[in-house]
């Protein structure tokens, strides 16, 4: 893998982020409603004079293009403005919430890839066997069921029927003074349901995709070669075949990362997970522009980073793409 490729990829990523910033800004400004009224409402009533001073304070009375210019310049310095509602810098707000979101999204991503690929591989081994049928049915259901519905069903199941997992929040209040290890376990315990809820749709997709991909690879000549030299079935499946079958899975996983983040918004809302999704949801209701834009910015940033990483890992996995 050459450095110039990585640099080029990073440059494109930067351009993309600039586009995202501009688009975000314009989209939000196009939305109806006057933020000054909303802010004033939060302060408890407004006269025209107050509204004007709010517009002055937040730069809302300047031409849109000027506002855009100021916004881009600020973003370049990682200044995403102040939340109308919290009266706090947006970066601080997001800083507090991005951790839980990343934890949730990465866990869901890993869970869906590892479990999904494993199911797919097992199913591909005997394409007409019962496991294969199970994977197909499970994949169809998993794919069809909306995330929030799965979440609510799981909450009902684990809140009342088998209460073994916490269904709300990220930490138990009573463990506030516990040691790091206990706290980490507690977070993990809270993480299981939301992560699984978020993962299930992707898990189903990866299972289907890897089943199809494995079936194709298992028919290829080099698999016969591997068998002809005496490789064990496990080595044929998980070493020779999976390395090749993983390439399309990797691509889809990278592309799905964006959807995973928007899925996290719903899951965080359902499970009251203290992440960015929850913040986005609340900010939209409050018309808290800087915060919405900040969340969008960070979400886009994560997607762009994920895509760059996917691209690079694709090259690592497939030697035929290197050096291009």
């Amino acid at each position, binding site marked *: 893998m050459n450095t110039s490729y990585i640099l080029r990829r990073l440059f494109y990523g930067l351009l993309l982020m600039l586009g995202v910033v501009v688009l975000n800004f314009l989209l939000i400004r196009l939305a109806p409603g006057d933020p000054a009224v909303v802010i004033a409402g939060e302060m408890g009533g407004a006269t025209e004079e107050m509204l004007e001073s709010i517009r002055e304070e937040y730069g809302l009375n300047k031409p849109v293009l000027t506002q855009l210019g100021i916004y881009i310049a600020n973003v370049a310095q990682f200044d995403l403005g102040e939340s109308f509602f919290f009266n706090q810098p947006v970066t601080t707000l997001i800083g507090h919430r991005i951790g839980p979101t990343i934890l949730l999204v990465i866990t869901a991503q890993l869970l869906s890839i590892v479990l999904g690929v494993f199911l797919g591989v097992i199913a591909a081994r005997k394409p007409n066997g019962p496991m294969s049928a199970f994977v197909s049915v499970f994949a169809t259901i998993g794919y069809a069921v909306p995330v929030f519905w799965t979440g609510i069903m799981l909450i009902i199941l684990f809140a009342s029927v088998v209460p073994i997992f916490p269904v709300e929040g990220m930490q138990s209040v009573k463990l506030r003074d516990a040691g790091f290890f206990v706290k980490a376990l507690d977070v993990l315990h809270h993480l299981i349901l939301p992560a699984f809820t978020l993962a299930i749709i992707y898990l189903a997709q990866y299972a289907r995709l890897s089943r199809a991909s494995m079936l194709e690879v298992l028919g*290829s*000549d*080099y698999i*016969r*070669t*591997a*068998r*002809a*030299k*005496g*490789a*064990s*079935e496990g080595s044929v499946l998980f070493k*020779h075949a999976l*390395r*090749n079958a993983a390439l399309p899975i990797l691509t889809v996983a990278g592309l799905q990362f964006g959807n995973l983040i928007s899925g996290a918004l719903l899951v965080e809302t359902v499970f009251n997970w203290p992440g960015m999704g929850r913040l986005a949801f609340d900010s939209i209701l409050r018309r808290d522009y800087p915060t919405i834009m900040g969340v969008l910015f960070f979400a886009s940033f994560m997607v762009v980073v994920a895509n760059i990483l996917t691209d690079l890992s694709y090259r690592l*996995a*497939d*030697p*035929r793409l290197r050096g291009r």
Partner: protein
Amino acid sequence: MSALLEIEDLRVTFRTRYGEVTALDSVSMHVNEGETLGVVGESGCGKSITALSVMGLIPSPPGKIAGGSIRLNGEELTTASPARLRAMRGPDAAMIFQEPMTSLNPVFTVGDQIAEAIMLHQKVDKAQALKDAVALLDRVGIPSPETRAKDYPHQLSGGMRQRVMIAMAVSCRPKVLIADEPTTALDVTVQAQIFDLLNEIQRDFGVAIILITHDMGAISEMADRVAVMYAGRVIEDASADDVLDYPQHPYARGLIDCIPALGRDDHRLAEIPGVVPPLHLLGQGCAFADRCAFKQDRCTREKPLLGSHGHHPVACHGIEEARL
């Protein structure tokens, strides 16, 4: 001297949508230590299925060995356990395939792939196996083997890849090497080089070779003995000289007549009229009857058996009667 590899009355069937089809019907052949047996016949006649049966690589389902025996060094292979077959592939029997372009795994270096074959059957560490792999690459005539060992298959030409396949196949010093149309995908000059290499390998390693081909030129250059196959049966079995100079079976005669000769003033290349009948439509009689210029009534009623009717074993009612 008893034969190294003995195939007796081998019957292989495949489940297809036309019902069960017999791909190999009472196929018998043998290979002695250090000799080369050529197996010739047109596509679909069962050459490759015979080879895959020896390796225990018949895709199952839909295929299965329905009868007969394969003995390598006196050991019965048709009833051997999968583990035993795996242990046998490499040190006892090895195979190289028709398609060097697709027979190597694209995501592993060629050195790794050869080293894997070595480590599967010998108690050596990775470093030693890689050293052996480099020595083998050198042995099969690959220039600067240390660097080439670190190359991926796509970085090598077709001829080089076939050399790598040969290096991998002989890495565990097999007693039998099956070469399934090893030069079909290569251009003519490279074909000659590969045959030279196979001859050298045979001399140095004392390995018996089963050369599957439809190239009569390759047979005259390489083979000691020849088995001619047609529609899943052996129809003539003799020394290479006998088959080339005195072909008995009308089909074998047809094959020899199809060889264009330098200096012979042929206006048209001879051909065998008709095509091989589909296996599920084989009737009671001789499978070649419909294409045979010497067809008799008996040929459509009764399958001719491989028997010594004078010169050498041949399965043809016409020859049988002429010799009576």
